[in-house]
């Protein structure tokens, strides 16, 4: 049994033992769920050439949450999840004796914290440990909610977060004001879906011929005085395109494909912040209540949890070039008959400060429509993207630097409403400025329309939900219809489809900003799914 599992049981057991004696079961709340999730990819054009029409997920989760209140002032929460992935990883005979290979799983500690009410002062609470914070008033799209990174490892779940250790202090000086301060010692990045690697992937066709390479965020406008041999202005992007087309023999001028070009071992590395005090995160919030109007002001100091392009180096060995030393940047066996390119990209997590405002208001005078809004003014760290191209270990163009993220403050926001029209019809609609992973880099900040409508039948036993997100700038979108049936008390059976609309290719292969938000392969696959869930 894994050490983490043993420790989880021990922690829970300690709480139980501590609470014994006085109707201990009354002090322990045990909740959780058991779920199965089976997904099938229903296309073959959003992955590697020809890949599709296969199972993508076969997952079982067991979530156990214990809340213990040994006294009125003290609470402890432990939530752990066992995840079984359902795919065999054994690829040789010895592995067939290893249950972990044949039936891989992991154990996650989602939350583990203690809470003390009235610490030193009856209006002061302390919370410490591993937890998930939920700031902001809007549904899911919360630009003021930055303490926990997002867990997008499941592309159908936008609400999951990565838990982190933190210390929280809450003050309740009045009944209409709550002050909160949180300190997070160590930064954790957001988890990305498996398709995220397509954002940096090199693509080949059915014959193994090169089709496209990742587009770096370099300037598409010429720098002052930057001209070509004919005296015409030329941008960094055009220089790179010219280098590529003239340097690499065998490129088809019409299709751009090249059967004599190979990118062995493309890497995307993350540049993590050091574990120093300066790289910890902190936030403060003042939450107000004024009748039906709740609003909050917040400030966050920390880092953006999604990766931002930082560097790229293309290390080229031409046909017939020396293979004894391999690449300059990494010794790798190369194909001497082809042009070999070792492409290493790096991403980083920029520092930022965020000043936020959020509100929620239920308009009793307007049929109880609920309005929510959030506004975050982000002061980012400037990120200069650097690119070099080497041939035979030497730079063949002037190294390029472009400002990928300018230091200019920018705004992300959400505004929306939700309303239950009748007992069987519900609507939630929002305008979102800036998706989760957007940080005013070369891709920019885009505008979105997000909506979900629910039709409920048989006293909410059957729910048909249709959700969608539309990028108003490039008109790509996703569509997420689901049918949920409460087959028995606490049992949900669900089926649905997740579909992405938009071109998979870049509008301009040399312009980073022309990527389709939901069309690009990095956004994920089109899947059909069935789920079963028991909750207690």
């Amino acid at each position, binding site marked *: 049994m894994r050490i983490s599992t043993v420790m989880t049981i021990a922690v829970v057991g300690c709480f139980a033992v501590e609470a014994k004696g006085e109707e201990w079961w009354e002090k322990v709340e045990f909740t959780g769920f058991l779920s199965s999730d089976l997904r099938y990819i229903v296309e073959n054009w959003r992955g590697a050439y020809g890949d599709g029409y296969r199972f993508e997920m076969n997952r079982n989760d067991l979530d156990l949450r214990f809340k213990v209140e040994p006294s009125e002032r003290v609470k402890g929460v432990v939530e752990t999840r066992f995840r079984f992935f359902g795919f065999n990883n054994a690829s040789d005979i010895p592995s067939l004796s290893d249950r972990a290979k044949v039936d891989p799983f992991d154990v996650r500690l989602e939350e583990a914290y203690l809470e003390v009410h009235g610490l030193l002062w009856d209006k002061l609470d302390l919370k410490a440990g591993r937890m998930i914070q939920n700031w902001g008033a809007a549904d899911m799209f919360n630009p003021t909610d930055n303490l926990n990174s997002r867990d997008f490892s499941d592309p159908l779940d936008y609400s999951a977060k990565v838990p982190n250790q933190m210390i929280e202090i809450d003050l309740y000086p009045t009944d209409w004001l709550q002050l909160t301060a949180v300190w997070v010692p160590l930064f954790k990045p957001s988890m990305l879906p498996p398709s995220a690697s397509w954002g940096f992937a090199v693509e080949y066709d059915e014959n193994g011929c090169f089709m496209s390479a990742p587009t770096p965020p370099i300037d598409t406008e010429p720098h002052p*005085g930057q001209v070509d041999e004919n005296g015409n202005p030329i941008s960094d992007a055009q220089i790179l395109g010219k280098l590529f087309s003239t340097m690499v023999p065998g490129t088809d001028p019409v299709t751009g494909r090249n059967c004599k070009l190979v990118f062995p071992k493309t890497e995307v590395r993350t540049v993590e912040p050091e574990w120093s005090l300066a790289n910890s995160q902190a936030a403060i919030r003042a939450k107000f209540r004024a009748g039906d109007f709740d609003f909050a002001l917040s400030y966050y100091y920390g880092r953006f949890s999604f990766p931002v392009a930082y560097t790229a180096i293309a290390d080229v060995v031409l046909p017939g070039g020396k293979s004894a030393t391999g690449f300059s940047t990494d010794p790798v066996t190369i194909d001497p008959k082809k042009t070999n390119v070792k492409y290493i990209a790096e991403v980083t997590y920029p520092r930022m400060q965020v000043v936020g405002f959020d509100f929620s208001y239920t308009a009793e005078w307007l049929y109880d429509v609920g309005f929510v809004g959030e506004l975050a003014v982000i002061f980012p760290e400037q990120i200069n993207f650097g690119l070099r191209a080497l041939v035979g270990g030497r730079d063949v163009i002037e190294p390029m630097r472009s400002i990928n993220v300018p230091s200019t403050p920018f705004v992300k926001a959400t505004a929306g409403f939700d309303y239950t029209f009748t007992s069987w019809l519900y609507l939630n609609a929002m305008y979102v400025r800036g998706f989760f992973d957007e940080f005013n880099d070369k891709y920019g900040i885009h505008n979105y329309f997000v909506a979900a409508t629910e039709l409920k039948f048989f006293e909410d036993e059957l729910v048909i939900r249709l959700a969608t997100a539309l990028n108003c700038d490039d008109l790509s979108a996703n569509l997420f219809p689901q049918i949920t049936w409460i087959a028995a008390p606490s049992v949900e059976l669900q089926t649905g489809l997740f579909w992405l609309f938009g071109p998979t290719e870049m509008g301009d292969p040399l312009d980073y900003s022309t990527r389709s938000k939901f069309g690009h392969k990095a956004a994920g696959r089109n899947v059909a799914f069935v789920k079963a869930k028991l909750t207690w």
Partner: protein
Amino acid sequence: MRYCLFLAFVVYGCGWESDGLARLDDLYPREIAADIVAEELLETDTIVDQAGDVTGDEPGVGDIEGEIAPIMTGTWAFVAEQHGLLFDLYRMTINDLFIASVTGNQISLSFCKQDVTFQDDPGVGNSYLDEKTVASLGETSIIIPLSNKGTIEETTVIWTWGINPEYKNCPLPASADEKAVWDQDEDGKPGVTVHVEDPKGDRYMVRRVEWRLETGEQVGDIQMESLDGTLQFEPVDCTDPCKTKCLVEQVALGATNSLLMTAAPICVDQDTPSYWRMRKLSESYDCKKLKEEWKTLFNL
């Protein structure tokens, strides 16, 4: 107080910047710019620094100065434009044309055509090679190494006809039965067969030229497009009666006509410089096209 604290944080955050290019330079140190011959290779009057500010005069060809190693990879046409004096008297031009393949750190020349013209017709000495002979000569490539910087620097090239490669630096053989002799065109005759028009017949000969390619004028920025340089001659062993220097060494090993046993001396024309030239071509360019277009291509 809270307002001051807020301002303190904001001010502290101003000026945050991470530079990806500086990081790349730390991870993969660049060679010093002086080692890379951008300024020798590019005709540029404008210097553009990394901030994009112009610090020079009017723009010229290849405006981006700095650490650039121009790329020569690909297919080129090569011509050795040699000016000589037949019998040390009659001005002549020999254009030896090659298809050059540049890969890695060398140029590989494959012979395509020889064109000989005279300013004044000497009445004798006109000769030509047949297609089979040209093809045979083309099968043995001449290798020109590139410098560590990927460019042509002053280099010596020896090109032989009908001589075994291991004897290329030795005195030319005097008879057909010497080991140095190679029936390169595989016609059963020693050496290479040259057809002579006046007097009419065939000469079986061995031949050597030694060219000294001097660093030339190069045009193009990222990808080289044309190269031109002066050509000098460094005969290994020249006993002909040229007052100056012989342009080519040749010995006849046999002939269909005894009058053809003596090859006419070709001396270097000191008054007319000789050149080597290269022009960048597409991948699909071949010897057939070069034969048709070489005059236009090289403006000769």
